[in-house]
């Protein structure tokens, strides 16, 4: 409960603020505006700061919310409370349509795409007859509870801030869950997340809709606060301002959205009312100063004001011990029918004219450690990517546990019980070791986004975290469990990746250079762990350059050179194979 305490204090402060005697009514209006902006910014925090999807069209979703209630409550006389779910629904549906089109876009396409439809929608709002064109819709009825008509900013204030605080709580809950981890993984690329069964496209669409619904809520409140809706507040400039708010506040932090809203709204107000007094009333001086202050803020605190402020606080968030007693059901899987877990038959991968993997065939049986070795560029990692379906094979047949994986997605491979690590570590540096490892158990949890927001996922979540903690203990990193993954050494990060892979409850573990960056002792511990896993019934396929490590550990070795398999056999056979020696040491050796 200690984490909830600051929120409770904040809620109490916000509740008594309007009761202060003689508080200027204008301040309440400002606070209302801050709340409205904070709602939209919070959605952007999740979408942009956490999910890495920049949207320049957020104000358009406010427009959907505002116009829905405006039309329904003026033309059809619906009660504003009835239009609330409809407003949210319309914004959400708009987000589904626009999201399906845009969230697939990567990098800079996405922000520009959102900018484009944001502008298109703005012009649409201002041209449609039934939305009142540029004049908009006025005389929207106020919110009403019983006989209390919320006509003045002081009463609707409570509705707005209850919405803000609830939204903040729901968002924080969502982020601290199975779905939240999937969302937080989006910004770091999708390969790692997909390898553990995260449906990245669905997760992106989810945050997109969530952000749009928050914006729609803000629009609905706006319409009943102003009791009018016109296109201006839903245009490109407004969208840009919301993005500002999120970035200034700290785009990765839920409360950063609230802080940013306060800073930007108040700054604008102060500039608008005081600058003309200093410089005389000409021009839009406040815009100039606002722009300059914004750029300056980014120079001083590129990651926003919230983390900068929380760093100033003397006390730090204390880490809670993870309860490791909660059980997690094993991965749901069909019983193994064959002794062969993985079988490659003539697997081939061509990049243009380059044949990276040239008709390679080998297999991995149960309880076996197979090493895939070869000089740099031999096609080892490409073979891994073919098996995990990160890459589409050009020809040949690959079966996992008897299933032909042609056309399968990486998520389906994870479901079959194949877990992997990456040659270039793909952890999420700003998540703790525990959270990173829990990602591996993604497919073994079931709680969805709504359950997470409402904290109905705790049993499921406890099981996931307990499993993650057990696997971390198994690889010997319990002391680092609450550290940020980015703060560990490269060798430790590789071990974290192994713990994450173990959380899948795999039958086959694919390790891409697990020993690189490890010290001698750590290598020995790793080898012992892998042997123990094999004896426990797991198979391991590993790519490795450290010959001593491989020769000691592997039951069988497959050697690739220039994409072609040149040898296969036990370590002793491989050591004396003339082709292998030639591949490694050159023809004259």
């Amino acid at each position, binding site marked *: 409960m200690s984490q909830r305490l600051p929120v409770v204090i904040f809620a109490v402060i916000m509740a008594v603020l309007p009761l202060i005697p003689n508080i200027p009514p204008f301040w309440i209006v400002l606070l209302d505006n801050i709340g409205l902006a904070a709602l939209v910014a919070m959605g952007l925090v999740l979408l942009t700061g956490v999910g890495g999807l920049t949207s320049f069209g957020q104000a358009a979703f406010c427009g959907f919310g505002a116009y829905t209630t405006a039309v329904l409550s003026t033309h059809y006389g619906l009660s504003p409370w009835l239009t609330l779910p409809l407003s949210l629904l319309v914004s959400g549906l708009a987000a589904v349509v626009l999201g399906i089109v*845009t969230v697939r*876009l990567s990098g800079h*396409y996405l922000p520009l795409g959102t900018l*484009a*439809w944001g502008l298109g929608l703005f012009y649409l709002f201002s041209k449609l007859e039934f939305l009142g064109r540029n004049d908009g819709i006025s005389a929207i009825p106020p919110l009403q509870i019983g006989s209390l008509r919320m006509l003045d900013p002081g009463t609707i204030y409570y509705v707005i801030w209850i919405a803000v605080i609830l939204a903040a709580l729901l968002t924080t809950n969502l982020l601290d869950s199975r779905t939240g981890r999937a969302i937080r993984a989006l*910004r770091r690329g999708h390969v790692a997340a997909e390898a553990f069964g995260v449906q990245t496209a669905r997760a992106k669409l989810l945050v997109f809709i969530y952000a749009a619904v928050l914006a729609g809520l803000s629009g609905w409140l706006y319409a009943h606060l102003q009791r009018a809706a016109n296109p201006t507040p839903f245009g490109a400039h407004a969208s840009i301002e919301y993005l*500002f708010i999120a970035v200034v506040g700290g785009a990765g932090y839920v409360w950063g959205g609230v802080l940013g809203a306060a800073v930007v709204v108040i700054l604008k107000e102060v500039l608008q009312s005081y600058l003309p007094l200093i410089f005389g009333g000409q021009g*839009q001086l406040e815009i100039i100063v606002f*722009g300059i202050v914004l750029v300056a803020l980014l120079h001083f605190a590129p990651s926003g004001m919230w983390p900068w402020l929380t760093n100033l606080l003397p006390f730090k968030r204390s880490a809670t011990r993870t309860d490791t007693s909660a059980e997690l059901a094993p991965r749901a899987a069909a019983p193994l029918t064959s002794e062969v877990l993985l079988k490659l038959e003539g697997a081939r991968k061509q990049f243009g004219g380059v044949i990276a993997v040239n008709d390679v065939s080998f297999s991995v049986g149960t309880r076996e450690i197979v090493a895939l070795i070869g000089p740099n560029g031999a096609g080892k990692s490409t073979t891994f990517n073919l098996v995990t379906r990160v890459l589409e094979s050009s020809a040949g047949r690959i079966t996992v546990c008897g299933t032909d994986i042609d056309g399968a997605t990486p998520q389906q491979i994870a479901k079959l019980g194949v877990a992997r690590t990456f040659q270039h570590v793909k952890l999420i540096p700003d998540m703790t070791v525990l959270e990173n490892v829990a990602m591996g158990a993604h497919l073994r949890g079931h709680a969805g986004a709504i359950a997470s927001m409402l904290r109905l996922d705790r049993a499921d979540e406890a099981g996931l975290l307990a499993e993650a903690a057990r696997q971390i203990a198994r690889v010997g990193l319990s002391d680092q469990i609450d550290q940020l993954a980015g703060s560990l050494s490269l060798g430790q990060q590789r071990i974290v990746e192994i713990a994450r892979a173990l959380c899948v409850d795999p039958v086959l573990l694919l390790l891409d250079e697990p020993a690189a960056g490890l010290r001698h002792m750590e290598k020995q511990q790793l080898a012992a762990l892998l042997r123990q896993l094999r004896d426990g019934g797991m198979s391991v396929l590993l790519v490795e350059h450290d010959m001593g490590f491989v020769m000691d550990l592997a039951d069988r070795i497959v050697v690739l050179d220039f994409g072609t398999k040149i040898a296969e056999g036990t370590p002793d056979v491989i050591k004396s194979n003339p082709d292998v020696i030639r591949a490694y040491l050159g023809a004259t050796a």
Partner: protein
Amino acid sequence: MAAKRGRADAEGGRSLNTTILLFLIQDGITNGAIYALLGLALVLVFAVTRVILIPQGEFITYGALSYATLAAGQVPGTARLAVVMGLVAFGFDVFAARKSLHARALLRAFTVNIVFPVVVLLLTMWLAGRQNNIPVNITLSLLIVAAIGLFLYRIAFQPIAHTSVLVLLIASVGCHLAMQGFGLVFFGAEGLRGPTISDAAITIGDLRISGQSLVVYGITAALIIALWLFFDFTLYGKALRATAVNRLGARLVGIRTSLSGQIAFLLASVIGAISGILIVPITTLYYDTGFIVGLKGFVAAIIGGLISYPLTAVAALVVGIVEAFSSFYASNYKEVIVFTLIIPVLVLRSLAAPEVEEEKD
């Protein structure tokens, strides 16, 4: 879409004859050529600096309105802004190099940041009202905007060049707001028009092509060729391309990426100003018109994928022509159509090219 079409029919019922068709195409190509220039500049800046250049719109208005103000015999406020920005940039340079101040570096910073804009300002003050020679006015406007573009990068972007695209984008928006505010101070809320560069006109059959349109086509083509020559055949051009492909790699081989960024901004601001000067005789420009014009250049750049110059140029022509035709058939929905045009393109792109893994921050 059906609703839009229905409305267009009801509104117009206008029939398309050859004269109108040719006129629309010509109008579309003229606008498209401008969008092509802007699109190219945006692609250039994004590729080299990762900045999505929202203030491109201000380069357009600054160029156009400085030119119009000079033509009216007055000194545009932008010349003074350039001097002030130069002073700030000089301060930044000195501060950045405070630990290893060399006379040579100091002299270079002084020349670029102080002498250059002051000389331009003095020239402007001396020449404004004294003469009304179009090439002189154009040159002065371009110099002023070039200085502003250069200093803008130095002040706003160079110190945060290493941050994420998002932070750069927000900084870019901040610059846009500040510069638009200055635009209002300098040029007022009234729109301005500038004198045409050429009053000649040719008539072919039903079609009358104004000299100004021909100038637009000529300059656009010349600039595209010049950019191509610059990027393919000069050392600086190659350095810029290298920076665009790999910043770290470029630094390792001794390319100063800050210099690349400055050159990119310099080129973009000049291109923006040229576009502005080309359109200000055709349409009245206001201090805030540039934003929307620039955004249409964006649409072209996005369709071109922010990477390909020829594709961007072709896309810009398409945008111009679509805009011309939609203003004829459904003038109310012109902007809606132009801005939603890119959505099908984006969908096609995302279907054709699956996402690539990117490790960004």
